[in-house]
């Protein structure tokens, strides 16, 4: 498995501001993933973060709105920029671990963001 921490666990922000969410893993991983979970919804992948290269964004998500950093193999940040109430969601990071022939994603505890 994996031990993943996220900071902050929750925040309430004003529209127009930005929030940076941190994700720390207990050991080195190649890829880290950022998901958004809007209220009452399933998870949607925002982007995949590789160390040493730019993040790969999914359709509907852009770097200007969700810039991602990946300075080393155990850490990543996601910034939610110029926030609006529609950005109120849970943001989760995850990592993939391989055991035998099986790839499994493990998730951090999530950051609950409320934008007023």
């Amino acid at each position, binding site marked *: *498995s994996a031990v993943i921490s996220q900071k902050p666990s929750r925040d309430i922000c004003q529209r127009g501001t930005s929030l940076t969410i941190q994700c720390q893993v207990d050991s080195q991983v190649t*890829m880290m*993933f950022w998901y958004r*979970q809007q209220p009452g*919804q*399933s*998870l949607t*992948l925002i982007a*995949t973060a590789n160390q040493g290269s730019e993040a790969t964004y999914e359709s509907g998500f852009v770097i200007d709105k969700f810039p991602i950093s990946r300075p080393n193999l155990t850490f990543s940040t996601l910034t939610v920029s110029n926030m609006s109430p529609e950005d109120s969601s*849970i943001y*989760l990071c*995850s990592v*993939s671990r391989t055991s035998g*022939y*099986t*790839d*499994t*994603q*493990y*998730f*951090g*505890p*999530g950051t*609950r963001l409320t934008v007023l």
Partner: protein
Amino acid sequence: AQTVTQSQPEMSVQEAETVTLSCTYDTSENNYYLFWYKQPPSRQMILVIRQEAYKQQNATENRFSVNFQKAAKSFSLKISDSQLGDTAMYFCAFLPRGAQKLVFGQGTRLTINP
């Protein structure tokens, strides 16, 4: 494109009962993995059980077991002797082998009543 469908938005059972959550998926892949994740009110996504598509034997983890029907593309989760702590959202997820993008179903909200 792969899709995952959970047809039961909500379920409710009494403590100690057995409950089965349904999941179907659509794919042209032959090698893949399937997962059930649990998300309690704390919002942490917790891996419950996983199944490799090449294995015919159904996965089991304590009170949790799956019924994997590859031809029917069905992957249901059975919870035996349900406990109050099983109350959570349950998400079925699909991952093609060699890929990194998990495909999630819409979730089933399970409530265990005392």
